């Protein structure tokens, strides 16, 4: 494996034996379902699996949660808090697992973190410099592409409501949360299109049954393992 940038001191990326597989996509795009199905499939084939996701570090996840509830952090602060959360998981979960030859399934990665900030007017170079220095280049990034109107349906079914942040209500795109959600997700999609030109995602149509998507991912992962 390798780092995008200089990398972390004391870590030799080429000695990391495992694979890092990232699943990106909006809320309701089916990421967690796919990760569950892939975990079953990979464990069934005898692979060790570690899963990571945003806001799951032991270091700051509790404080981050608290901050999100009260909407009390300004954008740069929030962004750096997430970067801390990411770095903690990278160093304490992802890298040790890769060293041990595990497959790491990441439910979102630096791309979502960058996209959220870019949509909110964050400085692209600043974000790039923060994350590229420390992040490992994944073996593959799957982007689950789902039309915003389907996302609405799935979010409604899942939690009978739309999430404040995932609807971009903090940037006041509309007073109406439904309207805001659609606008926000469209913007996110545009940013992901731009990020794709830099980081090269495998775009997976998410407008299919979970089973069909999973078989598609399995086929792609099989090809990856052959290399």
């Amino acid at each position, binding site marked *: 494996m390798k780092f995008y*940038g200089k990398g*972390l001191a004391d870590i030799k990326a080429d000695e990391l034996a495992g694979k890092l597989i990232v699943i990106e996509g909006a809320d309701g795009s089916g990421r967690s379902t796919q990760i569950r199905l892939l975990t079953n499939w990979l464990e069934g084939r005898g692979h060790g699996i570690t899963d990571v996701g945003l806001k799951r570090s*032991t270091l700051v996840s509790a404080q981050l949660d608290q901050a999100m509830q009260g909407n009390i952090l300004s954008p740069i*602060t929030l962004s750096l808090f997430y970067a801390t959360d990411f*770095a*903690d998981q990278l*160093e304490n979960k992802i890298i040790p697992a890769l060293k041990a030859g595990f497959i790491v399934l990441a439910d979102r990665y630096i791309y979502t973190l960058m996209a959220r900030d870019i949509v909110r007017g964050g400085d692209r170079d600043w974000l790039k*410099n923060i994350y590229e*220095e420390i992040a490992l280049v994944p073996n593959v990034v799957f982007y689950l592409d789902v039309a915003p109107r389907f996302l609405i349906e799935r979010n409604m079914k899942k939690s009978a409501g739309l999430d404040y942040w995932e609807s971009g209500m903090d940037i006041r795109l509309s007073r109406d949360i439904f309207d805001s959600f659609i606008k926000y997700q469209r913007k996110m999609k545009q940013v992901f299109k731009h990020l794709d030109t830099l980081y090269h995602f495998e775009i997976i149509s998410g407008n299919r049954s979970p089973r069909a998507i999973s078989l598609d991912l399995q086929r792609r992962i099989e090809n990856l393992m052959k290399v």
Partner: protein
Amino acid sequence: MVQIKRHDQKGKLIAVEGLDGSGKSTQIYLLKRWLELEGYKVFFTEWNSSFLVKKATKKAKKSKLLTPTTFSLIHCTDFADRYERQIWPLLCAGFIVLADRYFFTAFARDVVRGCNLEWVKNNYSFATLPDITLFFKVAPAVAIGRILDGRPTLKYHEAGMDLNLHPDPYESFKLFQRRINDAYENMAEEFHFTVIDANRPVDIMQRQVRDIVKERIDLPAYKLRTRIVL
């Protein structure tokens, strides 16, 4: 190379930097008292004090969960919180903002811990350069003496124990402080530090600090227009 910009707001930012035991906190406190008593718009902020982030930092330090990377990022988060909510709005509002340590502290410490200086600078580049940076220069042995004479219990990170320089906290602290001092000296020119000889008595130093501030800031422009009873 990352360029850090200087602001063009009405306010002024004065930062103090220096080793633990250099006397900088006393000096900025006395500067604050003087400006307050003279009726100027002044605000004071110190390193590592954001309410929310501090809780995470404290927990992390206690359980020794931090790596150089997360140590750097969590302090940057703390700084950003104070910067976005206090320092920047107050500079816009025309206040004299006094900062007990500023991002140079991170540049020095994080680099000593092994982070890449350009990366750390980038992470802090959302913030402005101070208008005046006072660097309290003292021989490391003197500053170390001031801290260690009281035989305090040194905290793990304060003593730089995470760097594995020496198993004894006091010895580790000495080695760590010397490295921080070197890092400060390497930055002094690039960031136009105003160097204050900190081997002198408190009142003498304070007189010099006040003279510098009077000379470089048009103080009458910062008078409070409303009376505040202190």
